[in-house]
């Protein structure tokens, strides 16, 4: 009984080993998932980049800023001179929180009245902002208690007013929907094109195309161009649903959003094309696309704030296009900022697109070897 089990069993192993890519995915996916989920997912956001607007410039004010720093949730990146600089830092994403210590802070403290601090958080990222809000509340409470224990009685000495900026209601659709634009585009664009050339190879039509005078640039551009339209359509659908079903605001310049999305779509399509020059079958193309999407979704900041990730995960996240696109979509939709704040991200996306197109055109050979 079961004598035919072993031949079957052995054959499966041999085939598994021969299909290098599948084998790599079988080993690679769990390792990647473990590392990413294990390290990258810390919903308690630490080291949130923070700017300080210290209007009083007194030992007391330095003291309270130090208290914020000591929580570990805030990492002071700059001391700014006034509101315009603070607004700029938040808009550009250089900082995700700001602490404002007003002029009268030390005076109010000395008179035993309630001294007020202002904490502004960039709520386009709710996980990060919630941690910041909680931490700010904790700082105020602890300092109040210490002061009270010295002075006995009277008003609450310290109060922090938290202002969630860009997404005052801390609504999660405002955070998820713009991100989804990027995730959906990455997913569909990469898979579609990854399959495109491989499908022609599998069906034998590629061989027929190679003997025609078509150049490889004509072939590849002709293959991806129709999907640019598909991508723009998908994006429009998500934006319309987001606006009318989930009440996600469209604060910034919609034309700019479409222009940058076009670049991102081309980069994604080019990446798919690059995959299709590496693989031999449609199945491998799908596996490779998933292998690419996983780090995009997990490391880009779509699901988890990048500030919460360990340094290595943050560093790896710099190599996925979605990281930059998310900053652009959230920036335009929620913050209403334009190129003046986002030009670096846009340039990086252009670079991704160019490098990927050149790489895939160079890899593609008009022969069968």
């Amino acid at each position, binding site marked *: 009984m079961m004598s035919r089990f072993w031949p079957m069993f052995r054959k499966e192993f041999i085939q598994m080993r021969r299909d290098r890519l599948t084998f790599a995915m079988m080993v690679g996916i769990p390792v990647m998932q473990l590392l990413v989920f294990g390290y990258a997912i810390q919903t308690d956001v630490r080291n949130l980049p923070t700017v300080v607007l210290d209007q009083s410039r007194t030992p007391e004010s330095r003291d309270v800023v130090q208290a914020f720093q000591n929580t570990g949730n805030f990492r002071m990146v700059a001391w700014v001179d006034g509101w315009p600089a603070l607004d700029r830092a938040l808009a550009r994403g250089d900082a995700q929180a700001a602490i404002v210590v007003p002029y009268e802070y030390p005076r109010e403290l000395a008179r035993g009245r309630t001294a007020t601090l202002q904490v502004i958080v960039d709520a386009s990222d709710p996980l990060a902002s919630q941690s910041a809000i909680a931490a700010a509340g904790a700082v105020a409470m602890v300092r109040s208690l210490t002061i009270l224990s010295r002075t006995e009685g009277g008003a609450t000495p310290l109060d922090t007013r938290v202002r969630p900026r860009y997404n005052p209601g801390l609504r999660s659709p405002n955070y998820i929907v713009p991100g989804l634009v990027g995730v959906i585009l990455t997913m569909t664009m990469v898979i579609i094109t990854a399959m495109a050339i491989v499908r022609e190879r599998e069906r*034998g039509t590629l061989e*027929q195309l190679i*003997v025609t005078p078509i150049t490889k640039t004509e072939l590849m551009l002709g293959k991806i161009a129709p999907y640019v339209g598909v991508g723009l359509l998908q994006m429009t659908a998500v934006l319309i649903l987001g606006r009318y079903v989930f009440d996600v605001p469209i604060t910034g310049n919609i034309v700019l959003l479409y222009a940058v999305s076009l670049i991102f779509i081309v980069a994604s399509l080019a990446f798919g094309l690059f995959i299709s020059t590496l693989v031999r079958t449609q199945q491998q193309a799908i596996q490779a696309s998933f292998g690419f999407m996983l780090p995009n979704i997990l490391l880009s900041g779509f699901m988890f704030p990048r500030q919460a990730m360990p340094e290595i995960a943050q560093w790896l996240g710099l190599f996925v296009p979605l990281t930059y696109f998310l900053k652009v979509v959230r920036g335009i939709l929620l913050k209403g900022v334009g190129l003046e704040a986002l030009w670096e991200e846009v340039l990086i996306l252009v670079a991704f697109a160019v490098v990927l197109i050149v790489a895939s055109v160079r890899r593609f050979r008009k022969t069968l070897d």
Partner: protein
Amino acid sequence: MTQAAVETHDLTRRFDGLTAVAKLNLRIERGEVFGLLGPNGSGKTTTIRMLCGLLEPSDGAALVAGIDVAVAPEQIKQRIGYMAQKVGVYEDLTVSENLDFYAGIYGLRRTAKRSRLQEVVTFLDLGDRLQQLAGQLSGGWKQRLALACALIHRPDLLFLDEPTAGVDPAARRRFWQTIHDLASAGTTALVSTHYMDEAERCGRLGMMSRGHLIAVGTPGEVAAQVGGHTLEDAFVILQERDEQ
């Protein structure tokens, strides 16, 4: 001596240490119907693929219409038509969409395209099937469609790799009539096959075994080499001799 349609000098192709084609010397004149006869794995497909610029030769040289395939493969492509063993038509496009696509790829536009499409459709009798999906055609019709696509740019040379595999006898006969019609209009055809009756229909043929030629000549001449047997006998005898 006029320029040959195809000329190879010690043409060789190796795959990872395996020699598929070994020092092949071949000369095909213009307007000839030349058959490549040989068992599976004898190097027919590899030879045709090298002549079409699909594979680079490892050694030796091949001239197609006077152009070196290793030097300028792209220049050859406007001059040749090719039908692979597995026909390269889009099964999810209709007959007319397939023709239109290849006409466009070969640079035909507007009136030139329209009149050429009309010619090809009439020549291969595809008129009644223009709106049918290529995937729903029978083997014989699919093969005619593939031939139509390969002819659309009026190539001087046709490379047909086992074009009649999976095609019924009546359709095969019709197909060969078409090839001869083309040849009498000046087109050179190189056809690979392992059917003896098809080999008999070639003006000249080359028998291949283990990557090289074991006999070249008209079917009569080849049969005479082993003392006037049938072509099939000649083939078996010559191949056995070669393998010893």
